[in-house]
């Protein structure tokens, strides 16, 4: 992927994040994620119906990578079954950790395929996924 396109997608999702802002609804499960190695602090809420992810929302303070990854992750995971979502998350984690992964499953999340070059940013890219994994378990 062209580096400029990659950056544009990240910035667009940072500046106009999808589903940012929480709602008070008891059909959602909630978790807070702090990044041990930096200062990202995000809340995630998820609504599952019949094993299908109906909605995910997030809020908090975080860097461009964490915020954009939350936004793109949410767009990717909505309407997936729990198992499909977990498979996407596993493949995404493998991509960040430089292990073999299925590129076709990740769609727009492929913008983070070079994050491994910035080790201090890896946790930022993973934080939202760890949050959702926690909520799905």
């Amino acid at each position: 992927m062209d580096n400029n396109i990659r950056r544009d997608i990240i910035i667009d999702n940072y500046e106009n994040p999808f589903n940012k802002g929480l709602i008070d609804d008891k059909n959602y499960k909630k978790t807070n994620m702090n990044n041990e190695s930096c200062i990202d602090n995000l809340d995630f809420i998820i609504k599952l119906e019949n094993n299908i992810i109906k909605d995910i929302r997030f809020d908090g303070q975080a860097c461009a990578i964490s915020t954009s990854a939350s936004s793109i992750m949410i767009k990717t995971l909505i309407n997936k079954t729990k198992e499909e979502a977990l498979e996407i998350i596993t493949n995404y984690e493998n991509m960040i950790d430089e292990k073999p992964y299925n590129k076709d499953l990740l769609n727009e999340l492929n913008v983070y395929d070079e994050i491994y070059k910035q080790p201090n940013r890896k946790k930022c890219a993973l934080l939202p996924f760890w949050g959702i994994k926690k909520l799905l378990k």
Partner: protein
Amino acid sequence: MNIKKEFKMLSSNLIYLDNAATTFKPNIVLKEMNKYYTKYCANAHRGDYKISHIVNDLIDDSRKEVAKFINSNTNEIIFTSGTTESINIVVSSFFSNILKKGDEILTTKAEHSSLLLPLFELAKKNKLKIKYITIDKNNHVTLDNIKKEITSKTKLIALAHITNVLGDIRPVKEIGNYASKHNIYTLIDAAQSIGHIKVDIKDTNIDFMAFSAHKMYGPTGIGILFGKEKLLEKLGPYKYGGDMNASYDSNMNIEYKNIPTRLEAGTQNIVGIIGLNAAIKYINKIGIEQIYNHDKELRTYLVDKLKKIDNIKIYNPNEKTGIVTFNIDKVFCQDVAVYLDKKNVCIRAGSHCAKILHEIIKDKNTCRVSIGIYNTKKDIDILIKALENKNILKESL
């Protein structure tokens, strides 16, 4: 002041502006520490041989040097692992025995976690009240505002000398002398002031003070707890073991040594103590007044240039210390720090361990530049040039 060549860490083109987190160590400090491991690597007090006596003398000499540096008595200097441990010791082994249910501690929302968390834990355990001193419109602590909070139950005022985010200097002399007259204890976190501004413990009349060597050009893992002699006599011991006991028998009759030895059980961080001594001598050679003026001049230079950049909010433009805190509109502070790292410039982003300061400054996370003795106007120019870029966010990715 251009002394970069005296620091091996600065032999590359690194622009290091995170000196409030830790400072680089001058070659002379490293040399003295290396001498311990290569010329007289012995334990102190425990050997009737020459190299052990050398080490013994070096520890004594370091303690004297620290005492002279802050104008205290030698036996009022306790070696610890750093500011955090020093504060924890005095809170858990002195104040926990002195402060009783309903007693009040005065502090502020601008303090570091290493001061607030020990106080919070003690407050919960002993059912004490933590009261926050009102910060004035300049984000300063004033004696008048402290007086407004004092009641008959106020037993302790616990503050940083210089805060680690806003870099304001607290009037410790006024506070120490006032508190002393009113039978209120004082505990000062000097982590950010030591090595940057003259600290005279007798003049300030402070009861307890804590600081670390690594923020004053010395090694990590070594710090100081200062306490007035009569108060240290009442403290602990908080740990027990070798060297701090005079004698004991099988019936558990124990006699402990006097301060400061009584409070330093076990083998000391000898190389750290030696490094701290060398760091103080290095600071003295440059001169504390000159360091203070250097920090002030460089921060003024930095702030004047920052003000000319669009969309920058400076939180502490009018302070006198080398700590300058800012945010760039629409760019998260961590992205700014990552971008600057790509330009070989090290600054800090985040809450800087002052996690309730946002209740005062309204922002949780900031960029912090903190100046050290080796920084130059050229360093600031490189930082400013990088911050003038309109594409910081994009280039941080």
